[in-house]
């Protein structure tokens, strides 16, 4: 089975769960006076779930056949290992780490770390250029966000700011 039909199957499952919630569990907590309204919170989701289940099924069963030629610009997922998959996964991991470390480490340190480690993952080894560029970028962005846009971004690690 091709990837697009697997995805249709996953979406079908999601829509079925969604539809189950809309049809059977949602209206239980509805206040009595709201039951006299022509529209309930579940009305629109019910329509959506029916339509999406039908559409997902039509893709899953392959009712619509189209041009199967892959576009030249696109990536062929069947040969994913031919591409730089490791780098992509490492960068995604790095993004998760950034999300988790942003508060504890502070904006400046975690950003410098993110930019330099990201470049190293991609094969950059000229540290004498990389580190100053990362530090400058982190500083400039912090200044722009904090001072110009006025959005608070704690710059230093937690232990330096006394729990702030």
């Amino acid at each position, binding site marked *: 089975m091709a990837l*697009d039909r697997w995805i249709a199957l996953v979406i079908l499952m999601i829509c079925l769960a969604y539809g189950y919630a809309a049809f059977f569990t949602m209206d239980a907590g509805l206040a009595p006076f*709201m039951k006299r309204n022509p*529209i309930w919170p579940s009305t629109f989701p019910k329509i959506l779930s029916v339509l999406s289940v039908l559409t997902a099924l039509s893709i899953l069963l392959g009712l619509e056949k189209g*041009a199967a030629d892959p576009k030249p610009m696109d990536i062929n997922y069947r040969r994913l290992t031919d591409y730089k998959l490791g780098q992509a996964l490492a960068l995604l991991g790095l993004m998760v780490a950034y999300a988790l470390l942003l508060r504890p480490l502070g904006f400046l340190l975690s950003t410098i770390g993110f930019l330099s480690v990201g470049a190293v993952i991609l094969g950059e080894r000229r540290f004498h250029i990389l580190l100053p560029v990362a530090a400058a970028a982190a500083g400039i962005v912090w200044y722009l966000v904090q001072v110009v846009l006025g959005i608070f971004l704690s710059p230093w690690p937690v232990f330096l700011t006394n729990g702030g």
Partner: protein
Amino acid sequence: MLEGILIGLGTAFSITNILMVIGGCLIGTFIGMLPGLGPMSIIAIMIPVAISIGDPSAALILLAGVYYGAIFGGSTSSILINAPGVASTVATSFDGYPLARQGKAGKALTVAAISSFCGGTIGAILLMVFAPALASVALLFHSAEYFALMVVGLSAIAAFAGSGQVGKALLMTLLGLIMATVGEGALFNMPRFTMGIMDLQSGFGFITLAMAMFALPEAIYLVLDPSRSAQGGEGGEIKDLRITRDEARTIAPVIGRQSIQGFLIGVLPGAGATIASFLGYAVERNIATKEEQEEFGKGSLKGLAAPETANNAACTGSFVPLLTLGIPGSGTTAILLGALIALNVTPGPRLMLDDPQIFWAVIISMYLGNLILLILNLPLIPYIAKVLAVPRTFLIPFILFFTLMGAYIGQNNATELLILVGLGVCATVLRFADYPLAPLLIGFILGSMLENNFARALQLYDGLGFILERPMTLGLLALAVILVVLPSYRARRARLRAEGVADAD
């Protein structure tokens, strides 16, 4: 209308807004030039900045400037290194790159700049004529018609998605609508489908979703396939920007035709700059003389002018449904709509009456923006093109960082970043399987408006009676069904016929 233009002139020519236009065009040109970053990603990254400006007209002027700046920048990298920065400038590289190889890069850039300028300006004039007319018709609409109109818009986006794609686009739209029902809506005062997760109480963040759908998959694609950001660099030196009077005479009719055609294609939901540029190229090739046809693909000025004019005109045209009906026809205008809603402005026919300064300032700023792009691009392009030499080892971490920052600034919440990465991975997998992502975002943004209008119509008529009692609603809904069913029906018939012929042989 004259009054409106005056208001627009007053707003657009304030110092802040002029700076916004210049800033937007510069940022758009720079980033649009980088291969692999489309206008949608750039605008998604710029939204937090635009929202924190606070003034809706300034924000929209900035984002619109980024939009056409990006289309413009994309054409530069198409011509110089044969690496289109955005999809709508792919057709530009057909004739632009051969010209650059022949040592005429300067001439090609000039033709591109002039065509874009004319396309954008003529588009803006058409927008000024069409938008108020359409808005005054749309004022007669009630919530029932609105609901039906949105359904038509959403189905048209799916219907224009291409052969074999209608079902996928439709599913993506529905998924977007489903995602829009998550969280506490204004309508019922109760959280829906949050599964008890506190972070979903306010629903999915629109900026997070936009980043996850466009910027992140784009960046992951750049990492996976280094050839997408390959630096050709052999485009040659940029010199001799002048074009002769004869050359100007050849491209003038092309520009005239393609401005109008491109604009009209841009107005259609689901079409847009990419389709306009390819169609413009094809049309001009077909109506050219025999000798000129030979030149197409080998460095024809007409072949360069056609897509460049069309994509800029279409870009302007796509503002018509956004400003008059509040219904975005493309992913980019959907993001603009989301930004407007975040700024407490409701686009739609009332926009022209309630906030005329926004409506007109945006249109006026388009003239200004096109002029700035022309001034900016002709003398400065050799220097701006240096940005193409930034190595990808630096470029990609920065793209990822700005994606993260965009989502973080919007919500000030680190959990949002994890949601972003998760949705981004899902979006990348969807892209592998050729599911279009723009319909999902459009569905998501229109979702609550669609439900609100549906609910209002239901309440007014106390049931589904409004569909039958209002002929226009019924007609629009019928049109929506036809739009969705027709392409697959025709494809099916064509296939059956093809199989029949094969059997007869």
